[in-house]
C-alpha cells in the first residue's frame, strides 16, 4: 500500500522514518470532495495523514435559536432545511418530540403514511449517498446518475403529495398535513415493485467491481469500541458490527409491527458502510411493502389538534428517530409559553463526523475523500 511505500522512501532519504517535513493543507470549503462548505486541515507527512482537524460552521444558520423564537408550528419548515436530503424524517423527529411534550396521539393512518414517506426518504438518501461515494472515488457520473434517476422518481412522489420535492413540510404534531390519494399509494406500490430491479443493477455495477473493492476494503476502519464511545449511530455504527437501530430499540411510531432485518457489518471499513446502505434499501422495501399492504383508512390528523398557538405545559421531551444518517434527536424544553424555552437538535451527521480523524490517520489524501464520502454528511445538519 501507499503508506508503506512512502515510509520506505522517507527512510531511504533521511534514514529516519519520522523526520520528514510536514505539510499542512486546507481541503475546502468548496473543495470538490467535501460535500458542501466543510473544511479539513490536514497535516501530511509525504502522502500519509498525521493529523486531521475538521472545521465546521460555514453553513451555520442559527437554526436552534430561530426555533426558540418561533411558535412550535413555525419550526417545522426550518427542520426541512437541516438535512435537506431527508426533510420527511426531520419533520418526523420534531413532530415526535412535540407529541411527547404535549401528549398528542397520532391516528393510525397517519402513522402508516409516516412510515411510508420515511422509508422512501431512506431509499433516496441511501441511493444518492452511494452515488456520491462513487463520485468521490472518481467514478464521475454513471453511478450517481443512476442513483439520481431513481431518486427523482421518489421526489416526484413527494412533490405530488406535499407540493415540494425537497422542502416537504409535511408532518404536523398529531399527524400529517394532507391525506394521500389512492392513486398516490398505487404509484408508491409501483415504485416499490420496480425498485429491486434498480438495486440489482446497482449491485451488478458496483458490488463486485475490483476497483471499488481495492479502494474501499480495509480503508477507514472504525473499530467497534471507538464507534460506541464516540456516539456514532446509524449505518456507520452498524457497519462496525453493533446491532443498534432505533426503529428496533425504540419502536417509535409503529415500527414494532413490521418485520425487517438490521444488516450488520463485520470490518467497519468503507466497503462495509457501502454495503450497509445497499442492504438497508432492501429492508426499507420490505417495510414499505408491509406498510402498503396494511395501511388502514381513517383520519390523518385529529381536527381538534391545536397547531397554531400551541402552549405545552412546562416540561421537557426528547424525541428521537432513526434517520437515514443515524439517530436524529430533538430536545425541547417548554416553559409554558408558545415558544420553546430550549430547542436542541442532535444531528447524526455532526456526531458521526467526529471520528473522521481516527479513521483517516495513516491513510493517503485520496482515502480521506472516500472515508468522508462514506460517513454520509449533509452540512445543513452538521452546522445547523
Amino acid at each position, binding site marked *: 500500500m501507499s503508506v508503506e511505500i512512502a515510509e520506505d522512501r522517507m527512510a531511504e532519504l533521511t534514514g529516519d522514518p519520522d523526520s520528514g517535513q510536514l505539510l499542512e493543507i486546507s481541503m475546502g470549503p468548496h473543495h470538490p470532495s467535501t460535500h458542501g462548505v466543510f473544511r479539513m486541515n490536514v497535516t501530511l507527512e509525504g502522502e500519509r495523514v498525521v493529523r486531521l482537524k475538521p472545521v465546521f460552521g460555514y453553513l451555520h444558520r442559527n437554526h436552534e435559536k430561530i426555533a426558540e423564537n*418561533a*411558535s412550535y*408550528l*413555525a*419550526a*417545522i*419548515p*426550518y427542520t*426541512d*432545511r437541516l438535512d435537506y436530503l431527508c426533510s420527511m424524517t426531520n419533520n418526523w423527529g420534531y413532530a415526535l418530540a412535540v407529541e411527547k411534550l404535549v401528549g398528542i396521539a397520532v391516528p393510525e393512518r397517519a402513522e402508516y403514511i409516516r412510515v411510508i414517506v420515511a422509508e422512501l426518504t431512506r431509499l433516496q438518501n441511501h441511493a444518492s449517498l452511494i452515488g456520491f461515494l462513487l463520485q468521490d472515488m472518481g467514478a464521475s457520473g*454513471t453511478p450517481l446518475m*443512476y442513483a439520481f*434517476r431513481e431518486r*427523482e422518481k421518489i421526489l*416526484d412522489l413527494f*412533490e*405530488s*403529495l*406535499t*407540493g*415540494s420535492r425537497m*422542502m416537504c*413540510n409535511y408532518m404536523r404534531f398529531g399527524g400529517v*398535513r*394532507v391525506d394521500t390519494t389512492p392513486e398516490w399509494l398505487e404509484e408508491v406500490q409501483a415504485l416499490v415493485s*420496480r425498485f429491486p430491479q434498480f438495486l440489482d*443493477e446497482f449491485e*451488478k*455495477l*458496483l*458490488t*463486485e*467491481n*475490483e*476497483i*471499488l*473493492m481495492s479502494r474501499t476494503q480495509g480503508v477507514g476502519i472504525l473499530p467497534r469500541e471507538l464507534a460506541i464511545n464516540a456516539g456514532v449511530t446509524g449505518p456507520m455504527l452498524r457497519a462496525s458490527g453493533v446491532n443498534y437501530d432505533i426503529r428496533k430499540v425504540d419502536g417509535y411510531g409503529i415500527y414494532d409491527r413490521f418485520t425487517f432485518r438490521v444488516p450488520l457489518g463485520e470490518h467497519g471499513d468503507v466497503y462495509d458502510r457501502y454495503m450497509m446502505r445497499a442492504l438497508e434499501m432492501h429492508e426499507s422495501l420490505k417495510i414499505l411493502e408491509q406498510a402498503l399492504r396494511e395501511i388502514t383508512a381513517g383520519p390523518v390528523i385529529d381536527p381538534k389538534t391545536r*397547531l*397554531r398557538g400551541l402552549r405545552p405545559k412546562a416540561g421537557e421531551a426528547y424525541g428521537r428517530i432513526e434517520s437515514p444518517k443515524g439517530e436524529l434527536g430533538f430536545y425541547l424544553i417548554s416553559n409554558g409559553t408558545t415558544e420553546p424555552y430550549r430547542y436542541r437538535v442532535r444531528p447524526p451527521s455532526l456526531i458521526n463526523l467526529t471520528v473522521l480523524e481516527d479513521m483517516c490517520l495513516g491513510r493517503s489524501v485520496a482515502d480521506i475523500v472516500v472515508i468522508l464520502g462514506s460517513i454520509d454528511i449533509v452540512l445543513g445538519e452538521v452546522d445547523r
Partner: protein
Amino acid sequence: MLGKGILKGLVETARNFFGSYAEKERLTTVQFPEERLVQPEAARVFPFLLYDTDDAEKGLRCVACKICEVECPPKCITIEKSTEKKPDYAGNYAGKPQFYPAKFSIDVSVCMSCQICVEVCPFDAIKMDTAFELSTDDRFGGLLWEKDRLTKSNEYYHLIHPTEAAEVDAQLAGKKAKAEAKPAAAAATTGAAAAR
C-alpha cells in the same frame, strides 16, 4: 478472475445506454425550456391573494386579520390594516362590512414556500401559486411583491389547483348558507317574540 466485476458493470452500463433508446423508463432527461414536465396539482411556489368577482379591490377575501403575518416562519408578510370597512363579498359574515388590507406585501426573497400562511388562514384568502419562472434583475423592489401583484382571481385558482379550489368553494358556500340562515332565524325568533 480479475476484472470480472468490471466487465459485469460494463454490461450494465451498456444495457442502460442501449436501453435508453427502447425504454422510456431509462431515458429520463427532459430538455427543459423546450420540453416541460407537468407540475403536479399540489405544487407550491409563492403565495397569492384570492379575490372573488371581477374586482380585485372589492372582492378581495383578505380581512387583514394578520394571522399569517404572525405565523409566517421567516416573517416575510407585512400587512397594514385599513381604517374604514368595505362590504363583504365572499359572504362569510352575511354581508357585514369588513376591514381590508390597505397594504399587503410579501418579500419573496425571504419567503420559504412553506405554505403555513395558507394553513392558518381562516378565510381561504391566501393560496399557493405554481408559477416558478420569476427571476428578476431588480433584487429589492422586484422581489417585494405588493398587493397589485399578489392578487389573483378565483378562476386562476381553479385553473392551477382544480380539486382543492372546488373543495374550498364548497366549504365557503356551506359557510355562507349558514351565515345567511342565522340572521334569518334570529329575525324569525325576534319576530315571534314581538308577536307574543
